[in-house]
């Protein structure tokens, strides 16, 4: 009885995916795509070219550069998300005054829509009249051209994304911390375990079901963090902050629209993520997780 809806769902997701695979094997661009201009229907003239697009991508110099930066971006962001998130969660997981106030203040970056945050940061980091530079100058340093220098632009997008992503990690890990039975800590203390040992042997293993999930979610979200890159630096300067996802988008929708090339980039990205997720899942399995 639910079959029709399930079929709709499968069509909704499956059909574009199949069509994407097909497009990636053709030479479709803006020029040879079928279209309708007024009364005239121009038929499509693109052709099947096999794996040409994939070979072009894998042999291009662009591919390694984009991939390296995407991996650096994802690893640095997720590491900082989880590290800072866990630190704050540990601090918040104690009885103290003003706890719920801190909680609300710290969650705020997640509450603001990501595209608004990207615009906020673009303003804060503005070279001429951004407040960050203004404060640096007031403190006697020279201003930094945050968004116009390849290195600092990378630092900027990472800073913005870390600011955005920490609250989710903090809340998820805090939930995990609160679910750990106190008796474990009491027993460990009776046995003379140091605070570090208790953290290492009770807190971290007990958090694993939550942390393995949020690390996976965080990795996928960061890998695909389109708004931050696209709105903060537009991938620039000179493509230095362009991750795979924004690069594929730009191929398809800027300049001469290269639909087939972009579809092939999409499939390469899909392949990368499936490989990564499978490896991750295997690793979790070996540690006895119920995935």
């Amino acid at each position, binding site marked *: 009885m639910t079959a029709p809806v399930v079929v709709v769902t499968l069509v909704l997701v499956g059909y574009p995916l199949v069509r994407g695979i097909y497009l990636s094997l053709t030479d479709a661009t803006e020029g040879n795509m079928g279209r309708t201009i007024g009364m005239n229907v121009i038929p499509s003239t693109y052709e099947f070219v096999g794996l040409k697009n994939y070979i072009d991508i894998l042999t291009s110099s662009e591919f390694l550069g984009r991939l390296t930066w995407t991996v650096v971006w994802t690893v640095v962001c997720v590491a900082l998300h989880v590290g800072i998130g866990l630190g704050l969660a540990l601090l918040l997981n104690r009885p103290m005054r003003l706890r719920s106030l801190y909680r609300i203040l710290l969650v705020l970056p997640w509450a603001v829509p990501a*595209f608004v945050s990207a615009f906020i*940061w673009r303003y804060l980091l503005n070279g001429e009249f951004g407040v960050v530079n203004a404060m640096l100058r007031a403190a006697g340093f020279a201003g930094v051209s945050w968004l116009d220098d390849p290195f600092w632009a990378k630092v900027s997008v990472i800073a913005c994304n870390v600011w955005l992503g*920490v609250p989710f990690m903090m809340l998820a890990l805090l939930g995990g911390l609160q679910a750990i039975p106190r008796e474990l800590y009491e027993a460990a203390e009776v046995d003379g375990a140091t605070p570090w040992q208790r953290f290492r042997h009770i807190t971290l293993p007990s958090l694993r079901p939550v942390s393995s999930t949020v690390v996976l979610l965080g990795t996928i979200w960061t890998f695909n963090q389109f708004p931050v890159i696209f709105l903060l630096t537009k991938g620039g300067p000179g493509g230095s902050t362009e991750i795979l996802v924004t690069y594929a988008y730009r191929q398809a929708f800027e300049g001469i629209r290269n639909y087939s090339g972009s579809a092939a980039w999409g499939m390469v990205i899909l392949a990368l993520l499936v490989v990564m997720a499978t490896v991750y899942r295997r690793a979790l399995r070996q540690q006895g997780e119920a995935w």
Partner: protein
Amino acid sequence: MSHAAPARAGTWSRDRRGPGRSVALHLTLIAASIVSVFPVAWLVLTSLKPRTVIETASVAPIDHPTLANYTQVLGETRFLTWAANAVIVSLITAVLGVLLSATTGYAVSRFRFPGFRSVMWMLLITQMFPVAILIVPIYNLMAGLGLINQFPSLVIAYLTSTVPFCAWMMKGYFDTVPVTIDEAGRVDGLTPFGTFWRLILPLAKPGLAVAAFYSFITAWAEVAYATAFMTGDDKYTLAVGLSQFVGQHKAEWGLLTASSVLIAIPAAAVFLLVQRHLVTGLTAGATKA
């Protein structure tokens, strides 16, 4: 932590920490709170400054306060149209998304078949990075159907990413509803659909709420599809409209900050109310796969 005297080192006796550690704890949290709040606070303050002050490197928090940016955003731009567009698209996405994902989630929760876990896993993986992979085929399909610059194209695009994830999350909720309830419904003469609609759905209300909210905010804050699909400025959603304020050649920071505040305040208020459920929902579905 390792410097603490043994008597109060316990994680379970943290309420007895000394004054020094209390101060350190609060100072750390205050510093973190400042980092977290400052960009938003500065946004609000900037939106109240006149244009001439915004375009100087002034660090004064308040300088010639004025509401001019707000009146200009509301009166002289299409901000309200964009907001209405974003709300319409997000609402339709949320309603359709919940209907489709609840039904799919129920089906996946109740029927087991070989390779089930792998299918669930692939469902999670393929749906979570749809922008780069699906945007080109969806764009071409919509162009073929003549739906570019029409709201249905955006709704369909958003459903491709929200439905699988919500279905996955809903499955987690349906798994917690005992199968005996299904059986009881059938014994009492309900049709299979009646069982689902009248017995199971009401029990999964928190899950439905999370799915609806997740669908809504995904659609509401989406940038890539909206930028590519909506070509006329009467059809822009907020994310696309706002980027018009800070284009390549001109930057209307006053308009941008004022409209950002107008968007962020309702969004943040709703969000802070429901975030607890959202975190539970997002991680619960995952751990129960």
